[in-house]
């Protein structure tokens, strides 16, 4: 017995699947590069920069790993962007707005404007 799943749900699942597989492979490789010392470590030298400043430091093993974590974190935004045209095609106005606002909220969080610490 098979359950019929809406198209947007399947599209979302497919992107998440490929994104996860690619991420696992890439993160494993980057971590090996990091712990074997093929790329130098930054964290031992000084404190971690705030905001997205650390993107300038991806030549260091630890920040290369953070870059891949960032890629994983953006997967949800990519999935939402992929289903927005499908929601428009279905004239599903409410979910179109929900998806759009969710993308904006996530982009706001990703913007680095919201930074706190102690």
């Amino acid at each position, binding site marked *: 017995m098979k359950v019929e799943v809406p198209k947007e749900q399947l599209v979302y699942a497919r992107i998440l699947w490929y994104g996860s597989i690619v991420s696992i492979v890439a993160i494993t490789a980057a971590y090996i590069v990091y712990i074997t010392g093929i790329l130098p470590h930054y964290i031992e030298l000084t404190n971690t920069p705030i905001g997205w400043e650390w993107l300038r430091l991806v030549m260091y093993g630890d920040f290369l790993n953070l870059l891949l974590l960032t890629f994983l*974190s953006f997967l949800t935004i990519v999935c939402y962007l992929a289903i927005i045209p499908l929601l428009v095609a279905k004239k599903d106005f409410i979910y179109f707005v929900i998806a759009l606002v969710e993308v904006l909220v996530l982009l706001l969080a990703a913007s680095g404007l919201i930074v706190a610490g102690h």
Partner: protein
Amino acid sequence: MDLTALWWFWILLLFIFTFLLGILAVMAGVGGGVLFTPIVGSFFPFHLDFVRGAGLFVALTGSLAAGPGLLRRGLANLRLAMPMALIASTSSIAGALVGLAMSTNIVQVFLGLAIIFIVFVMLRAKKAEFSVVEKPDKLSQVLKISGLYYEESSNELVEWKVHRTWQTMILFVLIGFIAGMFVLGAGWANVPVLNLVMGTPLKIAAGTSKFLLSITDTSAAFVYLTSGSVLALITIPSVLGIMLGSFIGVRLLANSSALCWCEELAKRAWDMGVKYES
């Protein structure tokens, strides 16, 4: 003996622990942060700020890995998840800001209290494998939140609908805030709210809760990534462990009951909460 010198031992242990956690977390519909943060914070030689950062990514990546299998099988419902995710992800940003602004000592005390409260919720909440919803409410009808899933253990199709949608939405504001503040994920609250308040069948509640975390934790993850609170050395093995464990967890969820795991998780978390508070 200097335990921190055996860094590879701790990393290997972290990987094994998160792999097993990944399997359990899917079945309970939780992210895993509720166990990861207290256990790793207590027994591993890492600073709590970095453990919380890693805990958030454990919850996020575990749910990202579980998401495809849950969505394809109809065990997670996108129409149910999207409105709740929007509410929770917005409030989790506010929670993350408050959590990061507080001193570690205060966070530890509140974390202990929060975990004890969570355990109380998990132990006291009655769970309904198949909820009875006589009539769906207006809002759920407008949002077309309903569905059908294949129950592999009994070989039948189960139709479900929901009620008390706006009440559930209000609860998700609170859930999102606490999740962002303590980086505990929110599965502990998602499942009872979706199951008991909204009337979603337990499997759908657990599956949708797990998937929801992939959206709600994303916003808090960005806050942590830009706050210098993520340490690759401990976060990456945790992420790899939970993702691989989650793939197995999804297969097990399709075939078995999610009920027993919640209680087991609650018992473990209780011990951790008492330890933090003291």
